[in-house]
């Protein structure tokens, strides 16, 4: 069983240490959610795992072998990355865009073969955009575009899929659809790592959660444990109502708790001047 693991990972960006001593693993077939407040380092962790940014200390390994040593194409075939900001520079067709996911499988001279076209078709079907195959991507709605981007990542047919907020800005129906597709992939054997803000989605779709706070792993484990009231108050600074539906937890944020000590209060500029 494949495992993608980060050990004691420390990442610095522009002189600031964004991640310190992170231990993280994901195995084939797992769905792991990375959560935490803004600025905790979630995107950085994902990008480091995708070999997009260098790291200072620690190691990232795939099946025990350091990803640094993997040839770029092999790494690209086995780990797919779906970033937040997905805009297409050109008005290519949906099918062509999804087809980009096959590039790691093509040699420098070999064009896409039947196997590649089948993979693309499967990816389009899995994201329910197959009937949009010939439409130019600049004429898609937000939801459709998000699904096409996901199809591109799925077309890679990787062992691991790293998705950064794949459902941001999607309406509930499309959001659910994307999550179902992802968990379907996990069931088929892909290891999924997603960064989410919606705690209910994280709770319902991820088998494990990793809570990041100020660059460190603050909590890890099953959703119910990680999303305890104590953790929510300590790391998010909120009070929430937790419940269960269909056997899975849900979280409804209710109110902010007292001021967090790590947030500096802003000056109050709305006071009237002294007479």
């Amino acid at each position: 069983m494949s495992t993608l693991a980060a050990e004691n990972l420390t990442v610095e960006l522009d002189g600031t240490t964004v991640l310190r001593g992170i231990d993280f693993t994901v195995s084939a077939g797992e769905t792991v959610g990375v959560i935490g407040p803004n600025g905790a380092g979630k995107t950085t962790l994902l990008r480091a795992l995708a070999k997009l940014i260098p790291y200072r200390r620690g190691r990232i390994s795939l099946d025990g072998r350091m990803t640094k040593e993997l040839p770029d194409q092999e790494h690209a075939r086995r780990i797919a990355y779906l970033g937040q900001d997905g805009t297409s520079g050109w008005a290519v067709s949906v099918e062509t865009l999804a087809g980009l996911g096959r590039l790691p499988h093509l040699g420098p001279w070999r064009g896409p073969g039947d196997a590649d076209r089948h993979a693309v078709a499967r990816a389009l079907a899995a994201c329910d955009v197959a009937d949009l195959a010939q439409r130019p991507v600049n004429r898609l709605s937000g939801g459709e575009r998000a699904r096409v981007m996901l199809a591109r990542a799925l077309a890679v047919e990787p062992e691991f899929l790293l998705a950064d907020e794949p459902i941001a800005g999607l309406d509930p129906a499309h959001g659910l659809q994307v999550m179902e597709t992802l968990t379907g992939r996990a069931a088929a054997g892909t290891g999924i790592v997603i960064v989410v803000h919606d705690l209910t989605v994280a709770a319902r779709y991820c088998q494990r959660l990793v809570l990041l706070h100020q660059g460190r792993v603050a909590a890890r484990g099953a959703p119910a444990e990680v999303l305890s009231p104590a953790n929510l108050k300590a790391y998010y600074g909120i009070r929430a109502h937790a419940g269960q539906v269909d056997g899975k937890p849900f979280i409804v944020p209710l109110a902010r708790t007292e001021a967090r000590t790590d947030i500096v209060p802003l000056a109050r500029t709305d006071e009237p001047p002294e007479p």
Partner: protein
Amino acid sequence: MSARPETPPIEGRAGVLRSRAVLLAALSLALGLVFVASLGFGPADISTVDALAALAGSGSEPTRVIVMELRLPRALLGTMVGASLGLSGAALQGFLRNPLAEPGLIGVSSTAALGAVLTLYTGIAGAFTLALPLGGVAGAVIGVALLQIIAGRGGGALTLILAGIAITSMGGALTALILNLAPSPFAALEIVFWLMGSLADRSFAHVWLALPFMAVGWVMLVTLGRPLDALTLGEDTAQSLGFDMRRARTRLVLGTALSVGAATAMAGAIGFLGLVVPHLLRPLVAHQPGALLLPSALGGAVLLLAADIAVRLPFPGNELKLGVLTALVGGPFFLWLIVAYRRRLT
């Protein structure tokens, strides 16, 4: 949300390949036609038919000399320069993900001209012939480097164009300065050649001098097809698809500098070609940046040769400068592009 049966469009692939082959064949044919036609234009009364006969070895002696030493190298150089400009334009647009990028507009042609002028009028090129194209290449490298510094990462289309204006102005001013300071009395008059470009009176010496540099540049640019396709979704995605973006950028810089630098050193700064050609051909390759490269090279050659014919039409003994023509066509085109992409710019 219904499940669709998997029907991979197998004929789609063959269709795409076929349409690409048809496009390349059509462009090659157009190139051949305009190449042959351009042999028939010039102050001397030699038609295309006469020229072809001269190439075959028949015809009067002056006709043979004119065709072999003046018209043929001119057509060849026009092909090479046009290919360089079209190809680099497509590569720059693909890499910068910006349909407004092209070597003339972003200042590379201007600095290349400066480099060439430095080597020619100071006598360096007289002592060491390769210095002329090398000067152009060095100037082009500096232009791209300046562009990276000014517009670099995170710069949008507007920053790019503004940087291009700044670099072009500086390059033009320095070129004029060198020409004014040059000892030869003709130097100051030749600024028009360097700023507007011309293929007049070029010889095979220019062809052979430029060819090695351009050939290497072409190879570097043409192999950028896959990285450019991968870049459709941005640098992160391209990197995650296994492409080394730093190496791709190096190939882009060197390839552009070599081909545009050598072209400018031989024919002066010619603008707008690298803007117009990829834009015209993009719909024919389904907007894929990688597939646009080779057709843009061919299309650039066709368009430049056509322009070179047009400059010889109005006043046979006194031809126009190429840059005048490309600006007459490319200028309004550029304006239209700005209007069409207004929203993307701001």
